[in-house]
């Protein structure tokens, strides 16, 4: 049914058709003569024009352990590289320096003493290995933090915020430093402590976010472990006709 709405009244049905036709004719004429532009018409009708290509919807990701579905932003290799480099450039990420030692390039009677780094120092070598291990762990944590903050997209409604409040209280009750918990945003608490309930979910999330095209061995193993039957122990039963494994 045709209807024309405007001030001071709304006309519907058969009465509206000639009016709508007249308006269309007037608009077409005005457009043809350049008296108004298409943008003017769209603006008057309240239509917002999409500029550029429409962004595809964000892919969804299901945390299997908690059953919570979120949206994720994928992170490309350039983004990941920038994140890695920024971690390395951080001033508190400096490796330990080797101790300086005196080296005599002369003789005992005519010494020519110079100071040099001694990378073979046992304590320095140990400190370097410890620093590298700590660095790897730190980078891993920062990487996960980046994924949680940037790549996981979730809207926190009242139910989710209630879950966050409950989780904060639980963590503080468990003796975790109150300041550490307070430093986490609601989003971080929700994703880290409500959505992720096992490491498989975390591995799957990382794989999806960084857009891995080939699954890792760990991810395949995680799926293998979801099939409970120990195959070898049941081989003889299998020959007798018992099912050996759970088909998907």
């Amino acid at each position, binding site marked *: 049914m045709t209807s024309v709405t405007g001030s001071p009244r709304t006309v519907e049905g058969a009465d509206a058709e000639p009016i709508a036709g007249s308006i269309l004719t007037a608009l077409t004429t005005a457009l043809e003569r350049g008296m108004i532009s298409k943008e003017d018409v769209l603006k008057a009708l309240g239509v917002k024009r999409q500029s550029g290509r429409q962004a595809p919807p964000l892919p969804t990701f299901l945390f299997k352990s908690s059953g919570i579905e979120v949206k994720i932003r994928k992170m490309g290799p350039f983004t990941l590289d920038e994140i890695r480099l920024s971690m390395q450039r951080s001033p508190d990420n400096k490796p330990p320096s080797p101790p300086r030692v005196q080296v005599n390039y002369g003789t005992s009677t005519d010494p020519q003493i110079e100071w040099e780094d001694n990378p073979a120092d046992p304590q320095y070598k140990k400190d370097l290995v410890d620093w590298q291990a700590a660095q790897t762990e730190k980078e891993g944590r920062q990487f996960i933090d980046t994924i949680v903050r940037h790549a996981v997209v979730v809207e926190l409604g009242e139910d989710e915020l209630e879950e966050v409040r409950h989780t904060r209280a639980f963590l503080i009750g468990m003796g975790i430093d109150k300041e550490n918990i307070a430093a986490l945003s609601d989003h971080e608490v929700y994703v880290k402590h409500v959505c992720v309930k096992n490491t498989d979910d975390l591995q*799957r999330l990382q*794989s*999806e976010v960084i857009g*891995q*095209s*080939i*699954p*890792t*061995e760990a*991810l*395949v*193993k*995680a*799926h*293998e472990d*979801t*099939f409970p039957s120990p*195959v*070898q122990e049941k*081989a*003889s039963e*299998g*020959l007798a006709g018992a099912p*050996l*494994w759970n088909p*998907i």
Partner: protein
Amino acid sequence: MPLSGIQYNTSLDLEFAIQWWGIYKREEFEALPVDTQARLIAVYKLNRNIEAVLAKAQSDEIRRNG
């Protein structure tokens, strides 16, 4: 693979899994979510293990029965 100790790396498992499932071209398989790919590979690997165990059990049975 049980008994023999043979192991394949993940990318070779991926190739074998694509062939085994037989319903995917490589590019179709790689277009699946990584999690689904991992599950299909896991199923293929378990099937491979089951076949190996069954083959061993059958061979033992034949040997026992002379």
